[in-house]
């Protein structure tokens, strides 16, 4: 050997390299349990609505005791992100609080998307004003606050519906979403349905908010802004608002009553909704119910009807079936409302439409 030194060095380097790479690459897939033919295994990735996030995280944990070899990842990121990830094939299902808007339809290239409603819940109007724990709001006042027309807490419009509350002159800081959000879409839909002559910013996943407003990432981000900023007001889903310890307002509904956000109020609102054949519906601004909470919304898990492999189709049916079945029992303890029975039944029947 002419260059033993070089050969030795090369050999050592190659060994180290191969060891490092193989350590990095070695994966240990979970082996399915012995003798259980209904046990599936695999990974399911999902992203989207942060409204669903707390529910998904809890369901993923309890699902592990039903199907220990299935790993589900729910990444959150907002309804817009979910729909984008679904259209690009990055995820198996997407959480979305609103149906696919017309300007995004082209991303789905004509493939059929199935909507599986999974949760109902209130959107709270949460605020941070020490000493005031039970303020009332009307849709008009909410619209004016979020359009920047009402800028201080002691504005006469707020004082008028809250007689007896000594409101301070603290400036109002608007907290809203910086990402594309189904919560935003439904909140703005509520304002558009309730007071169309007052609310001028339209209804969409992203709104042209006043320049002085602060953007937060996800429902959690907005909750964090409200929590840390005296005088802040924003829209946060009930589960996140309650878990963060926020104070929320009672909102006047279509019947004229001031209703505080609650599971019961959301259920009452959902029962008034008209469900389309593809299982889309809108629970905001429910009519014909005096107990309905007016800013109630819903969320779906979107799936392509035609899957690329039987395995993915089975994983989806297993997990979505769980969400529609036993998973619904997790909802009330997490401060969501379960689906009304008829909607749940229709959704379960739709599971068979997932094919490969």
């Amino acid at each position, binding site marked *: 050997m002419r*260059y033993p030194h*070089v050969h030795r060095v090369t050999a050592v380097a190659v060994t180290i390299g191969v060891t490092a790479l193989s350590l990095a690459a070695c994966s240990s897939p979970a082996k399915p349990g012995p003798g259980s033919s209904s046990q599936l295994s695999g990974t399911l990735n999902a992203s989207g609505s942060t409204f669903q996030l707390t529910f998904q995280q809890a369901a993923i944990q309890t699902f592990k005791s039903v199907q220990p070899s299935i790993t589900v990842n729910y990444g959150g*990121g*907002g309804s*817009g*992100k*979910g*729909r*984008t*990830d679904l*259209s690009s094939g990055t995820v198996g299902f997407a959480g979305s609080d609103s149906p696919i808007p017309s*300007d*995004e339809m*082209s*991303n789905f290239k004509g493939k059929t998307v199935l909507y599986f409603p999974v949760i109902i819940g209130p959107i709270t109007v949460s605020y941070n004003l020490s000493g005031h724990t039970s303020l009332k709001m009307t849709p008009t006042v909410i619209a004016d606050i979020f359009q920047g027309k009402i*800028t201080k807490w002691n504005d006469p419009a707020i004082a008028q519906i809250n007689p007896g509350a000594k409101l301070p002159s603290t*400036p109002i*800081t608007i907290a809203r979403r*910086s*990402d*594309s959000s189904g919560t935003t879409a439904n909140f703005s839909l509520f304002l558009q349905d309730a007071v169309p002559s007052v609310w001028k910013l*339209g209804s*969409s*996943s*992203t*709104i*042209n*908010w006043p*320049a*002085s*407003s*602060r*953007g*937060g*990432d996800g429902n959690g981000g907005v909750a*964090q*802004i409200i929590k*840390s*900023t005296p005088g802040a007001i924003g829209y946060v889903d009930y589960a996140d608002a309650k878990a963060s310890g926020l104070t929320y307002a009672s909102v006047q509904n279509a019947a004229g009553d001031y209703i505080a956000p609650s599971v019961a109020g959301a259920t009452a609102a959902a029962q008034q909704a008209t469900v389309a054949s593809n299982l889309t519906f809108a629970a905001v601004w429910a009519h014909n119910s005096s107990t309905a909470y007016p800013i109630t919304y819903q969320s779906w898990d979107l799936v392509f009807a035609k899957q690329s492999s039987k395995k993915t189709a089975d994983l989806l049916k297993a997990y979505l079936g769980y969400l529609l079945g036993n998973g619904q029992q997790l909802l009330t303890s997490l401060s969501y409302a379960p689906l009304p029975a008829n909607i749940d039944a229709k959704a379960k029947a739709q599971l068979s439409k997932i094919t490969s």
Partner: protein
Amino acid sequence: MSTVTQDHQAAPPSALSQRRPLGDRSFQTLALAAGLLVLVILVLIAVSTSQQASSWFSHEGTKIFSKTWNPAAGQFGALSFIYGTAITALIAIVLSVPVSLGIALLLTEVVPRRWSRPIVSVIDLLAVVPSVVWGLWGILVFAPWIQHIYASIGSGVTGVPVLGPLFGAPTSGASFFTAGIILAFMITPIITSLSREVIATVPSIDREGAYALGATRLEMIRGVVMPHSQGGIVGAVLLGLGRAMGETIAVALVIGASATITPHLFAPGYNMPSVIANEFGEATGVFRAGLMGLGVLLFVFTIILNVVARWIVARSARRGRGA
């Protein structure tokens, strides 16, 4: 940026190697390939990101520099982000440069050799804190705390001619100014260490000459150090500026996510890297191309800044040696 310039081109005697062995030639090719990789990567960055951004350029045409960024309405004008990037970087530079120069001069002129090691360690420690930790601390601890200071200043200057629009109420802890402060913390180590290197090249003769003439330290600095190093320091500042423009995560967490052009420094704002970080995940079509386009703009700006900075430094180093 070492000032040592040895040329290691000593070659083996030609009698032994009419044709160099294969191993030797292939090693040289390998080394050349690794070097070229730098160029290849830079070119690929430019090409691939521009290509991804092309639908934005064609969709907006000259309106890419318009004020309105409203994805829902299909409008993608980038001016508010360019403004935010410029303002936060400017605030960072204004806050950081005096401090960095002060520390650099402290290390080179005032402090005895023995004490410079711990101070340099402190600066290194400042440099090693990751951006995301600055952001975490910034949004959870710093912003709520400084909001009180902003509020006091704001209520004090509202209505005053120049200060009012800049610092008046309403104020927000997450704002242009907070992002600028955090950026200042992050770029100080760079500007300090680069300035130090430049100042260290001042010939001792000139320093001692000034002292011999009876100059105080301040006068020596102004008369000898500054004229000699000003090019290098300008270069260092430009490099810090480039870094401030590109810093993403810390800014994304504390800037407030509001796309607006306003002189109001205590208001929530937005800049190019943070809007890309926050909204890329969910963007499609022209929106995504627009965010890519912002990335292209960022790339171009920072490359230009870096090239100009290094040219200024090299030119002043040449002058300094010649003198």
